[in-house]
């Protein structure tokens, strides 16, 4: 959890300017899934198009099932994964919502499927643009959820996700969340993964028991009230173990690929930060640039970038906030009827701890609303106000267009 400045990032010579979706699809190819099952939906489409092309060109010897819906996409992977295959899917928004029932089934059956979620708003009103309402809606489905700031991180997290998901003591599916359009459609320099090196990092998936006529086990029996709690507890424990596994995987990834992101969370310019911002995903890049600008003006502000939302890194968050005086959470979702999901969880993480500081929450970027430097500065100025004892709102929609209401 050291400052991320130690992470030099890839060298220019080894990088290539490609579309985010291409880089991501290439990463999936390098992870050598046996079965890919996906249904096209904006803005995930380019990922599955690139994967289809890899398969068509013979570069990727995977089975690609062109299913009839997202519901079928993930359902097919239940069968494939139970039969022992490494499985991949990608979706977003309505597609993820359509998968909802299967999400719980995959995690409950302990099938280590990895899926990219190209984050997008949920209808109505219809919006194809980015926010985090889709994956946040699936936060309780038992999947590990990792959020990427950049294309490179989404690429790297794909391999890391398999490593964590397939670990024998975890066996839990994982979502790699990357912001739709902002990361899926951007062209930027990326160091593409190398299949051979990924093989070194990622051992083959070899589950002990699979669907096999020669060893005919029953998968997915139904469980009565005398044992259901224990099954959920086992999932809960596996996610607890994933907290360590994510840290470990980040270190192992660094050893092989030379890139590290801080594990469960990344602290940016947090050393003496009085105002600590907390956010997830690509907006953190804009926040970091804003922090640099504010720092040069003498404002002591830092960022905790949550990388693992599930499991939620309570201890790491408490530790990172030990010296802060105000927390401002910036998130691209809202739990209609209460506040933002992330700010709620941050408050819950701090309640029984020694960190007794004010926490304020801001909803930004819904349905693709651009998050600007000015917007981030606005959050910081409100946090400074709270530090001086002025709390106008504990929670608010940032830059609301009042004139439309």
């Amino acid at each position, binding site marked *: 959890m050291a400052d991320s400045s130690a992470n030099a*990032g890839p060298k*220019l010579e080894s*990088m*290539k*300017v490609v*579309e985010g979706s291409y880089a991501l699809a290439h990463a999936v190819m390098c992870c050598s899934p046996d079965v890919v099952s996906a249904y096209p939906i904006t*803005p995930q489409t380019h990922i599955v198009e690139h994967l289809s092309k890899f398969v068509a060109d013979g570069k990727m010897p995977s089975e690609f099932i062109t299913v009839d819906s997202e519901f079928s996409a993930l359902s097919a992977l239940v069968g494939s994964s139970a039969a022992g295959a490494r499985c991949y899917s990608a979706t977003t928004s309505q597609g993820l919502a359509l998968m909802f029932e299967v999400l719980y089934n995959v995690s409950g059956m302990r099938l280590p499927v990895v899926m990219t979620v190209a984050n997008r708003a949920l209808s109505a009103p219809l919006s*194809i*643009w980015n926010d985090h309402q889709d994956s946040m809606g699936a936060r309780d489905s038992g999947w590990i959820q990792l959020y990427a*700031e*950049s294309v490179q991180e989404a690429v790297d997290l794909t391999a890391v996700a398999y490593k964590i998901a397939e670990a024998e003591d975890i066996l839990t599916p994982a979502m790699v969340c990357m*912001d739709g*359009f*902002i990361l899926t*459609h*951007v*062209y*930027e*320099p990326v160091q593409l993964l190398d299949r051979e090196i990924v093989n070194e990092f990622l051992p083959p998936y070899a589950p002990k028991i699979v669907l096999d006529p020669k060893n005919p086990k029953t998968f997915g029996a139904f469980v009565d009230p005398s044992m259901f709690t224990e099954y959920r507890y086992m999932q809960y424990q596996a996610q607890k173990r994933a907290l360590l596994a994510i840290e470990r995987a980040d270190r192992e990834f660094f050893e092989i690929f030379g890139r590290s992101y801080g594990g469960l969370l990344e602290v940016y310019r947090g050393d003496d930060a009085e105002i600590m911002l907390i956010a997830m995903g*690509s*907006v*953190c*890049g*804009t926040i*970091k*640039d804003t922090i640099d600008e504010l720092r040069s003006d003498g404002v002591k502000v830092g960022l905790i970038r949550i990388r693992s939302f599930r499991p939620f890194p309570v201890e790491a968050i408490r530790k990172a906030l030990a010296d802060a005086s105000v927390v401002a959470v910036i998130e691209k979702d809202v739990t209609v009827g209460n506040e933002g999901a992330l700010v709620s969880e941050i408050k819950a993480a701090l309640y029984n701890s020694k960190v007794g500081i004010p926490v304020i929450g801001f909803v930004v970027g819904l349905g*693709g609303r*651009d*998050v*600007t*430097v000015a917007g981030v500065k606005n959050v910081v100025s409100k946090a400074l106000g709270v530090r001086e004892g002025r709390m106008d709102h504990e929670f608010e929609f940032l830059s609301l267009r009042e004139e439309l209401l």
Partner: protein
Amino acid sequence: MKEIRFHGRGGQGAVTAAEMIAVAAFEDGRFSQAFPAFGVERRGAPVMAFARIADEPIRMRSQIYQPDYVVVQDVTLLEVVDVASGLSPSGMIIINADRSGEDLPLDTAAKVVTIDATKIAIEILGRPIVNTTMLGAFCGATGEVGLEGINKAIIERFPGELGKKNLAAVKAAYERVTS
């Protein structure tokens, strides 16, 4: 960091132009980023795309509001879009037009460069697709990216005969604005 905004119409390749700027800048040894103003626009509708070039890795993800450069692929856009919005006074706007900047309805302190890219494109490519031609003009007028990088980006994107024709269009535009 230099920020560039492209204005075009759906189907004119504004997004591709932004991507090729990013590839070309990277070829020059700099960091870059390109992305469309993600929309549902169909062929003919006004579209925008963005590019950033910097010596450091680029983290900024917001759209571009105060560009250093603006590239306008279709002069008719001036009537419907405030193409010079936020343009830095020390910056430059490059417009595909058959007349000089003074004759255009523009409100900007920045330098205005016009080029009849449509004519060049029709002459060389046989089609009024101006995105590569405008890249040549951008390259020549701003010096932000090298011609070699642009050429490499174009060959990667359009292999074969089409690539060669586009290189010729780039060269013609480059020479037009630098002469």
